[in-house]
């Protein structure tokens, strides 16, 4: 698991999971959407506490390897300012058969979203901005 402030090279990332014994690869990409909860989003900023994001991410990947019969898995999360359509998070899993790759990929992204110290601030068309999932900023909008 890595945190990066530059664009994610997805082709290169999945290439690293290719293994001559692997028959299946499942991948997930999270992209910056132009709308969230009815607000038009212009730009998005991820604040990441990298030491724990990376250690907790590695723990999630380790858990996935223990729970599912997979060969390898990786995850990358962006930090900093992102434009609409950019890839914010990438998860890839290789396995011998496909069901395990799908299950593990889903496990990893589900846990990345709730366990890693990452915060998302959206900048809206009307000039407002808000931290996603924070009740205070939601109430203030």
């Amino acid at each position: 698991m890595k945190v990066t402030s530059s664009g994610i090279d997805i082709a290169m990332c999945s290439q690293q999971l290719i293994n001559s014994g692997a028959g299946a690869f499942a991948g997930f990409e999270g992209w910056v959407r132009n709308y969230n909860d009815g607000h038009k989003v212009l730009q998005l900023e991820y604040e990441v506490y990298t030491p724990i994001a990376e250690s907790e991410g590695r723990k999630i990947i380790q858990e996935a390897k223990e729970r599912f019969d997979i060969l390898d898995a990786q995850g990358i999360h962006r930090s900093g300012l992102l434009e609409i359509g950019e890839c914010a998070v990438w998860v890839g899993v290789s396995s011998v058969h496909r069901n395990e790759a799908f299950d593990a990929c889903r496990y990893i992204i589900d846990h990345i979203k709730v366990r890693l110290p990452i915060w998302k601030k959206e900048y809206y068309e009307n000039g407002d901005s808000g931290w996603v999932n924070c009740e205070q900023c939601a109430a203030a909008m």
Partner: protein
Amino acid sequence: MNKLITVVYFAIFREKAGISEEVISTTVNSTAELFRELKDRHKLNEPLGHCKVAINDDLADWESKIKDGDTVLLFPPVAGG
């Protein structure tokens, strides 16, 4: 006995507190007690159960004990992905 604790604020907590970190002198024993003390001072209005905490770069929970010299990281509700 008073402890010296470094508290680090992230995201909305940093914006509310107006600082990214501070060293405080406190008598509290647990992370939850520390959070309640700082909540009022800095208007950290997120429910405790939606927030996370780490001590010296290890994730902890709200029953974890803090000791003199610890660095406590206060994480508001996360939104990765």
